[in-house]
């Protein structure tokens, strides 16, 4: 119910964007459908990446994020529609020289040293970044002589990040880049992503960490069931979600509050009540009338998480 209200204006915005093709677009999927047998992974999905942007592809598991990235990298062929990178085919060597990818890799050869992995990948490119620079950017100092098999999960992720940056690419695709990283390592990688964007690099990021999309992305594309359901800055997505969360201490019964018009969910934490509603003023008026002793009042605008949940219609709040 909430999703349809919110997705309307955003959907129009998407169409506006695709209408005027501008020169700064460096990669695009145009009306791309991808079927695996009978299953539709992408359903006439369009997206554009402009130079210097950090775009986050956000969506629940199985929404088609990784499929979109794989098509953009030429690892998979679209059933219909058009994929373009730097005006060409992603499978051309010329395109790949300007492309860096960090994919979800379970394991890679354990018996090569970090330095050797970097040397090999660097040799694929005409103008690779110096190894010292790569190690500094990816935070691999002190790890260069270590065998890959001896690294921790977060350290392995950093090696994959370094491999994506080997060729000094103009477009960098990061598929769940901070998976398995601790908070410190995650922040360090965010810092590097921001630096890359400041250098004019374009970054496409898939993530299921909303905080990550919020912190990094200049534009967020929300994908669900293979379709773009919303697109905009983090602020725009939050603004599009008209709901508010009311937090207060009250003696009112949750069953009474949840029956009020415009209330989406009610949660009780001890004696604190959390009410999500599309009509905060009317709900508050009733609640204050019924419970003059109501205290600790706080009204909060939607966080990106709320907007995301409203969009994908996956309300986790328990209604009692």
């Amino acid at each position, binding site marked *: 119910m909430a999703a349809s209200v919110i997705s309307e204006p955003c959907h129009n915005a998407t169409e506006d964007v695709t209408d005027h093709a501008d020169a700064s677009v460096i990669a695009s999927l145009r009306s791309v459908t991808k079927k*695996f*047998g009978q299953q539709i992974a992408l359903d006439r999905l369009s997206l554009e990446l402009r130079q210097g942007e950090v775009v986050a592809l956000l969506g629940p598991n199985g929404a088609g994020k990784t499929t979109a990235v*794989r098509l953009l*990298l*030429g*690892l*998979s*062929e679209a059933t219909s529609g058009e994929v373009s990178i730097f005006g060409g085919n992603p499978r051309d*060597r010329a395109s*790949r*020289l300007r*492309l860096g*990818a*960090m*994919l*979800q*890799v*379970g*394991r*890679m*050869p354990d*018996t*090569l040293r970090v330095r*050797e992995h970097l*040397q*090999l*990948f660097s*040799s*694929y*490119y*005409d103008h690779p970044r110096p190894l010292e620079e790569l190690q500094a950017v990816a935070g691999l100092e002190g790890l260069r002589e270590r065998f890959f098999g001896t690294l921790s999960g977060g350290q392995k992720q950093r090696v*994959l990040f370094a*491999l994506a940056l*080997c*060729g000094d690419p103009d477009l960098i*695709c990061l598929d769940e880049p901070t998976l398995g990283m601790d908070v410190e390592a995650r922040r360090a990688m965010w810092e590097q992503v921001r630096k890359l964007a400041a250098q004019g690099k374009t970054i496409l990021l898939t993530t299921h960490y909303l905080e990550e999309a919020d912190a990094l992305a200049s534009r967020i594309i929300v994908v669900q069931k293979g379709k773009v359901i919303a697109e905009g800055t983090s602020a725009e997505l939050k603004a599009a979600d008209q709901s508010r969360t009311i937090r207060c201490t009250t003696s009112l019964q949750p069953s009474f509050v949840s029956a009020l018009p415009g209330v989406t969910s009610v949660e009780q934490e001890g004696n604190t009540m959390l009410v999500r509603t599309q009509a905060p003023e009317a709900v508050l008026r009733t609640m204050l009338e019924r419970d003059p002793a109501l205290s600790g009042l706080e009204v909060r605008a939607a966080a990106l998480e709320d907007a995301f949940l409203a969009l994908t219609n996956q309300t986790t709040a328990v209604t009692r």
Partner: protein
Amino acid sequence: MATTPVIYFNEARFELLKLSRNRSYLFSMIGFPVIFYLLFGVTNKNYVFHGHTIARYLLAGYSCFGAMGSSLFGIGAGLAFERGHGWLEMKRASPMPAAAYLLAKLSVSITFAVGIALLLMTLGTALAGVHITTFEGLRLLAVIALGVVPFASLGLIIGLVMPSNAAPGVINLIYLPLSFCGGLWMPIETLPHWLQVIAHGLPSFWFARLALRTLGYSDSSAILAWALLAGYTVLFLSAAAFIFRRQEARA
């Protein structure tokens, strides 16, 4: 592209480095032929077969055995691992030419195959009094190097279809019977007649015939054997290409 030869060289160099540090791989590949040769060839050094010690005859078969192992494990298990864990995707998204990846694996298989044959020659000469001329030795190494190709192609199929944890087991199920039935472990004449009939349909048998020929044991047609091995190569590569295209369409 000026950098392309460098890519091919580096890919092969690091493939060699990677495998030469992998103990379980080394054990399967070098351990099997060396231990079997010591057990069945070197310890029977007083057993005379076709006018020489049996260790000289078995040098050909166990060299073929080593070559098959290095290509089936190196390519089959290696590809299954790298494909199964997503590492191949990273490489395919890079500007690395696909041929560099495959040729690296093939050249490393050949390197190991030749290395194993040299090791067996040394063991045979030192421990069992095997005598072969330099010319015979060089011809045997040439046969071993070229004979890797059909088994490398078979390894490609295994690497494409098998999950990474199942690949080594499946390879053993192919590798060991193919070696035994092809007459690589003991003279084919000592096998039951029906097995000898089956052997004539196996690439391992024709590979061993060519190797034995270089040491003067077989006078069967080299052209026929090479033609059959080439046929197997074409067959395996076509099957691999078919499987790869079908996987691509589904990827």
